[in-house]
């Protein structure tokens, strides 16, 4: 298997939770802040980063600014923040530095500024090019703005450009989604994320569906949409490299591959997660609580989960199978040994039904397998799981 990231380095995630206005489907931790990112937020991030200070400094080869709307920071503040972080960590010159950007924050000046600041990759939240779907998602930018943003970004020299698209949105016909994906595939993007909408409880969209005001497409329809997108993008040279992610050769998100393949990541900002030195923990989902946590110092926090070798193995299977590289057969064999199952016997029906293939000593899910990954995983995991997990 190709190594997509350097195991000796860490990935750095920075959560900027502020949004000009809130979208009804989103359940990331975010705060409405029409005045932009409050002054002093970056200082707290840097303070938190200092908790990870080491000599020699930690090597960072991917940085991801997510949100919220991190592009609200503007190029100058982002540049200063990256420079400050560079004093705590050693951010390699070859690092992938991704910024999530809303179409309306993209213009010639901001693009030039972000490039100047060191951003190498932009992920633009397009969601859809269909007006009705954008309305259901409460997205402010019209389709034209989104298309213009992508084109402008490509012209300004960003080689790594990604767009986010939503499927399974109430009111979205299969044709609408295919049209959006086809039009985006013609743009100079090297990456597309196509998420089927997960309704998160308590979000306004969830409430609207629960009240019967909106109807979600059924699972069969959603599956058809998924397969249609897969077909369109494969034809246009994209590889379906993760359940919801497509990339042209060289376009995969190295930072996100860390999450799926068990690499070390350090998360800064409220709600950000870290998987670092055998521990897994999340920051508080509240600005105040996070501020207190930073001020009190102490990383990892006392409630961090300890990642035993068994747990790491499970995660390599559970999350590795999200990626087209799949999971190593030896990990699966070890997992099956927990309840005395034979790999041949367990895997045979999966292969026979076309959910997976075995290649290079790895189990890899097919597109049908991706669609059914929860079912495949509950099938693969020991019957006693998670109860039989040895305690740390």
């Amino acid at each position, binding site marked *: 298997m190709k190594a997509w990231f350097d195991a000796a380095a860490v990935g750095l*995630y920075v959560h900027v939770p502020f949004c000009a206005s809130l979208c009804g489907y989103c359940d*990331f931790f975010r705060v409405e802040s029409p005045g932009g990112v409050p002054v002093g937020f970056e200082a707290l991030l840097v303070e938190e980063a200092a908790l990870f200070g080491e000599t020699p400094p930690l090597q960072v080869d991917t940085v991801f600014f*997510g949100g919220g709307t991190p592009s609200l920071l503007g190029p100058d503040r982002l540049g200063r923040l990256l420079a400050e972080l560079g004093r705590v960590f050693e951010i390699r010159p070859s690092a992938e530095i991704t910024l999530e950007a809303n179409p309306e924050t993209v213009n010639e000046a901001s693009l030039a500024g972000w490039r100047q600041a060191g951003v190498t990759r932009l992920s633009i939240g397009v969601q859809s090019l269909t007006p009705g779907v954008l309305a259901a998602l409460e997205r402010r930018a019209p389709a034209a703005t989104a298309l213009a943003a992508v084109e402008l970004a490509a012209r300004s020299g960003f080689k790594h450009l990604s767009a986010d698209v939503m499927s399974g949105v109430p009111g979205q016909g299969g044709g609408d989604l295919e049209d959006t994906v086809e039009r985006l595939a013609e743009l100079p993007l090297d990456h597309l994320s196509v*998420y*089927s*909408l*997960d309704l998160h409880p308590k979000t306004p969209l969830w409430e609207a569906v629960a009240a019967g005001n909106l109807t979600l497409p059924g*699972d*069969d329809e*959603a*599956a058809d949409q*998924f397969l249609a997108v897969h077909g369109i993008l494969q034809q246009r040279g994209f590889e379906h490299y993760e*359940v*919801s992610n497509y990339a042209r050769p060289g376009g995969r998100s190295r930072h*996100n591959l860390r*999450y*799926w393949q068990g690499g070390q*990541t350090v*998360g800064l900002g409220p*709600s*950000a*997660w*870290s*998987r670092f030195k055998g521990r*897994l923990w*999340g920051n508080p989902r509240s600005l105040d609580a996070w501020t207190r946590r930073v001020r009190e110092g102490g990383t990892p926090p006392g409630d961090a*989960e300890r990642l035993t070798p068994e747990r790491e193995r499970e*995660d390599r299977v*559970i*999350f590795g199978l*999200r990626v087209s590289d799949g999971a190593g057969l030896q990990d699966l064999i070890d997992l099956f040994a927990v309840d005395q199952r034979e790999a041949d016997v367990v895997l045979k*029906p999966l292969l026979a*039904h076309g*959910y997976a293939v075995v290649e290079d000593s790895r189990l890899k899910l097919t597109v049908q397998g*991706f*669609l*059914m*990954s*929860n*079912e*495949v*995983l*509950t*099938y693969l*995991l020991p*019957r006693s*799981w*998670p109860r039989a997990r040895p305690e740390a």
Partner: protein
Amino acid sequence: MELSRIRNFSIIAHIDHGKTTLSDRILEATHAVSDREMMAQFLDGMDLERERGITIKAHAVSLHYTAKDGHEYLFNLIDTPGHVDFNYEVSRALASCDGALLVVDASQGVEAQTLANAYLAVDEDLEIIPVINKIDLPSAQPEHVVHEIEEVIGLDASGAIFASAKERIGISEILEAIVERLPAPTGDRDAPLKAMIFDSWYDSYRGVVMLVRVIDGRISLKEKVRFMNQGSEHDVENLGIFTPKPLQVKTLEAGEVGFVILGIKDVHEVSIGDTLTHPGRPAAEAFPGFKQIKPMVFAGLYPVDASDYPDLRDALEKLRLNDSSFVFEPETSEALGFGFRCGFLGFLHMEIIQERLEREFNLDLISTAPNVRYQVLNKKGDVVDVENPSKLPPLMEIEEIREPYAAVTVLTRAEYVGNLLKLFEERRGTQTQFHYASKDTVLLKYDVPLNEIIVDFYDRLKTLSRGYASMDYQVEGYRAGDLVKLDILVNTKQVDALSFIVHRSQADPKGRAIATKMKEAIPRQLFEVVIQAALGAKIICRTVVKPLRKNVIAKCYGGDISRKRKLLEKQKEGKKRMKQVGEVQIPQEAFLSILRIQGDQD
């Protein structure tokens, strides 16, 4: 107490006709219990019994009543189990009495159980006092009910007492009638001991407690006694009466009723109807009417989660401790893993046990379809009992399969007769009696294969008659039938636990109904589920549960790792509640499909 001052009696009634309330009134009038204790209906021990309005355990309460003649009398009120599966126990409780109050609801009239129990009382030569209860109800028709008792049961009801136990109307008349009209017990107190056991249960402190009626002689503390039918000998550890609180006595004499404790730990060592005597001076013969009661209805019970097996075993042990008619033994099913084959007296008994297992012991269970005990005559000429359809010998070895039949008595309002005739026809019944008991009451008697009434018969009867029909049954012998074994295959694998024996004429519709029901009950999942109903090698019906197409978490990044794991854990837990058959998961619900098909066919 001298014999002439003792009255041993039972109250016999249909469910809900007011037996419990009347018992309470009698206890109250004899000051057996304080008002505060009266809050709860005293004779019903268990919550479940109260909820179902039936009394499962019989009790005997000794009460002192001062009659208008100025004398004090000893009343032994003997409670009888109130449901159809316990015919034999009822007959033994009645045999311990000399008289009975026949309680009939003034608005409901005579029902099948009233009839059945009244006949049992007549069989035991009991003097019967009809009591027309609930006369305070606006719909009460006491005169009509008197007429009905005479016509339907054939008893002289001219002396019937009109009462309302709830409103305390007629209670003193009843108490006086017990003194005046019920006979005192007879018996020779100097003859060898003869004491009939009419109830027993397990008490965690005292071991097995038996209720006895002393027929002849006397039984005293510390003596050695012998079970005449079963043969073993024990010392009398304790002896007493219930007032209703237990009260120790030194001796119980002929005509008296009380409890005996012999230090026996297993309730199954005591047979209801057996007779106690003294080994040194035994009675010439045991009290007549003893029968060894065998379970008639069987079902496999399996824990949904295999790790609950020890808990299920412990729970069954606890229930068996107190229920001499309940038996079980370990059983292994290819499909369901480790479980138990349980034997019950009848279908209601089975329902009660299953409900208690789930409710009191909090166990998730899969129950196989219940079946009766079949007799198989093989080619070698031997007859073998088969209590589990999957253990039926190979077809070529079978000469004949015999199944038990029940004599079913139904009393119904005439307008529902058509519905019920159809029901009996569907259940392969043969009519033996059709009789207008009165202008608008019909008495039906049928011989029906027992297997046809153990699932969903009682409920159907109630539904088809809007609650106006009542039933009673008695198991009466075996008859050969054209019976076949129907198998259910899931993904071509036979699920042993779903096999059942059925009359050939019903194999096809039942096979279809089950395959369809199971399809509805099995969720779409990773793999296709093919359900087949088969008679030997012949497939009757095939249904398919298509695989699910989408179950995936779309977004999974840093913070979603834990969320994804939690969701998987939840889905995995959900699957643990299902049974794994090959590579597919079958929910409890699907195993119950067999139980659900009969109602739908009607």
